[in-house]
């Protein structure tokens, strides 16, 4: 078997350090990429606290919390996969990566359900956002009645200004969770490629760099959600 160390590196150790440092350099640009959205969110969170609380309470807290747990579990599987690759256990690496991928897909599935729910309730920013006969969504009660007239008396009219600021919250919600979900999709593809390589017996204690670097990316996406969850779902 030919050496996995590229000719411009002294040894496997140096190659591994160069690869992880390079990945961290990329992750710094990712922090800045998401950072712009977090900064914009922070400004308007301070500007319109009441409307952001109103909008946040419409999000499904239980689904958000479950999704956080699902993502943490996927990160745990990926951490185990990195250790398995480091120990030279290629089959275990592939199985743990598969666990991480399944949890990642579960996250995306729950997210898709939440998105479709927001579409159904006219909470997608645009011309049909919160029509005049609409009312606030009661996220604690999952079965929101579509019949506006039935509950109209319970929900006082919401001013156009409030609706615009609620729409601003949803713009941040869809931009931030959408960008995060796009990263999840890329991560699932990345982990799948690495899992196939593991099944072919590619990794050893001397060479498991792709597993480690792929893991760094996956954990970073997890960290983004760790901040998104309290900022979007837990405002009260």
């Amino acid at each position: 078997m030919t050496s996995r160390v590229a000719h411009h590196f002294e040894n496997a150790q140096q190659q591994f350090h160069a690869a992880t440092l390079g990945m961290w350099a990329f992750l710094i640009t990712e922090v800045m990429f998401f950072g712009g959205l977090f900064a914009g969110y922070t400004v308007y969170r301070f500007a319109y606290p009441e409307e952001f609380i109103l909008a946040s309470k419409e999000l499904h807290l239980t689904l958000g919390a479950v999704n956080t747990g699902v993502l943490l579990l996927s990160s745990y599987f990926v951490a185990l996969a990195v250790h398995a690759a480091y120990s030279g256990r290629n089959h275990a690496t592939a199985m743990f990566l598969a666990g991480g991928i399944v949890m990642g897909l579960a996250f995306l599935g729950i997210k898709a359900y939440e998105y479709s729910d927001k579409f159904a309730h006219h909470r997608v920013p645009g011309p049909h956002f919160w029509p005049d006969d609409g009312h606030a969504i009661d996220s604690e009660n999952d079965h929101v009645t579509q019949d506006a007239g039935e509950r109209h008396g319970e929900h006082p009219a919401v001013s156009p200004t409030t609706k615009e600021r609620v729409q601003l919250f949803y713009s941040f919600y869809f931009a931030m969770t959408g960008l995060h979900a796009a990263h999840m999709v890329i991560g699932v593809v990345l982990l799948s490629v690495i899992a196939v390589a593991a099944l072919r017996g590619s990794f050893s204690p001397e060479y498991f760099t792709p597993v480690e670097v792929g893991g760094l990316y996956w954990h970073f996406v997890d960290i983004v959600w760790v901040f998104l969850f309290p900022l979007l779902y837990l405002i009260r």
Partner: protein
Amino acid sequence: MAGHVTSPRASTVVFLLLLVLLVVTVLAAGIEHSALAILVALAIAITKAALIVVYFMNVRFSDTVTRMASVAGFVGLAILLVLLMADYLTRPTDWRDRETRGTTPQTTLETGEESSRSAWHARNSSGDRRRNLVE
């Protein structure tokens, strides 16, 4: 041997800690004290992120330059947020009311007079802007 990674035992402990912190942050959000609640939520989120970076991302086994890289992005983001909010929070507050449609120019709470910002709003209301475009 290239590098070193976190053991399954340590990963399991960290994962359980992360789940405990998740439960704590959800429960803490139920307490209605918004100013304190957001600080608690952010402190928990930062703790969770630190656990993930140090253990799952193996930074505790990394060399010094990688450790520096692992905090550099977050330090940069902290600078962005601190300077940005230092600006916004020390401005007159009426910029918040500016862009909403269908509202009349606001008066400031302090003086009751029409502020310069509101005058800006009045000047740039849609009718005027259209006239400017025509000219």
